């Protein structure tokens, strides 16, 4: 069957099997391998993409269900070679180690900040509840999202904790 949608701002159309999952459409049909496949069972959030502005699991969605939608993956965040504030936050506050969870985590954080531009630590932790990270212990991820939130609100991010020490 034919599916058409917008991915990172560009219209795409492809022939897929009806059982093709959105994540495989993105990775295998479009070559956008930034979106990762982790658990494949809906629990880890590595495959999180933005669908019409909302965080969704691309491993638990048919490509056909995204017909006509606007999909954003981690590849669609940087503008003219400049990192998105959330990407910059993960870089500046060491929000990643192995990086496997990171594309999903970043999309999750981007959609969270769009819904709630000034989240509390509690709200950030709750907002990324569906994204598992086996490396960082989440601490620096929370700091990275706080950094990005401040930037996006036009405020100066709090200094890194290690600079205070």
């Amino acid at each position, binding site marked *: *069957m034919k599916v058409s949608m917008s991915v990172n701002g560009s219209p795409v159309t492809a022939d897929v*099997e*009806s*059982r093709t*999952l959105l994540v*495989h459409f993105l990775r295998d049909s479009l070559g956008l391998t930034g979106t990762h496949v982790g658990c*494949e*069972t*809906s629990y880890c*959030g590595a495959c*999180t993409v933005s*669908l019409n502005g*909302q*965080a*969704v*699991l691309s*491993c*638990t*969605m*048919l490509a*056909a*269900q995204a*017909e006509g939608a606007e999909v954003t993956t981690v590849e669609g965040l940087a503008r003219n070679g400049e990192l998105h504030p959330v990407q910059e936050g993960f870089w500046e506050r060491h929000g990643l180690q192995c990086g496997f969870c990171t594309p999903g985590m970043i999309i*999750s954080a981007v*959609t*969270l900040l769009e819904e709630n531009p000034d989240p509390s630590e509690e709200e950030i932790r*709750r*907002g990324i*509840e*569906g994204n598992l990270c086996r490396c960082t212990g989440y601490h620096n991820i929370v700091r990275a999202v706080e950094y990005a939130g401040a930037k996006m609100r036009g405020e100066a991010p709090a200094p890194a904790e290690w600079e205070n020490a």
Partner: protein
Amino acid sequence: MYPRQFEYLAPSSLDEALAALDAHPGAKVLAGGMSLLPMMKLRLLSPEVVVDIGRIPGLDGITDHGDSVGIGALVTHAEVAADVLVMRNGAALATAASWTGDRQVRNRGTCCGAMAHADVAADQPVAALALGATFVAASSSGTRAIAAGDFFVDTMMSALAPNEILTEVRIPKTGPGTASAYDKLGRRGGHTDYAVAGVAASVTRSNGSIGGATVALTGVGNKPTLSHAVMDALVGTDGSDAAIEAAAAHATDGVEVLEDLYGSVEYKTHLASVFTARAIKAALNAI
């Protein structure tokens, strides 16, 4: 992990969807896909035809019917959790929706899908039961209303026929003396994930005493279950903490408690009492 091959239909009207279900016995309705697709990927289920109701107009709203609040088939957990009408008339359901899965799951999964799926440890079905919801089911031969007490039949089995679509869950509106609440222990601790045990309570206060109470349990048996013993013990009391705790001690009287991977019969029995007391207190505080 791929599902087996299937034919995908995306009807653009309810009538077309109902006709497709008649034409393809064994077809499965696809709403948010948060339960159906994982089961298909694990090949626990392999329907030959999938009828995606996601493109049918008119099923995506929360409607004020005057005496009830209608939650349409495509309304997501996130929308239920954030809706003022639902919060006002069925806080237990709004809370249950806000604690269903994680943000990604709440953005896709639907309230009606959670009802139809009827997992033994699900959050929203037990709230619907405590609130005395009505389920509106459509088939090609017409529409019928199913009372909450009749809707949940057994483990992952609702009263819906295979050719029926649940178009709406209706929550009766409540007056000023009534409020509801939900509390649970999630499998991943706190309120996260399916309930190890959870309790929804709707309580009415009249002239200083408890005039009415509906208390329902999830995660402890084969389906969401009313706790008649608690309701009998609570109604007519002054609603003091002592009265609530005395009533909550009877939470599982007459209820068949089943153990699962997450807890023994003893543990679930204990949790049912703890969360019964918490849900009743929270409901009374909200009046």
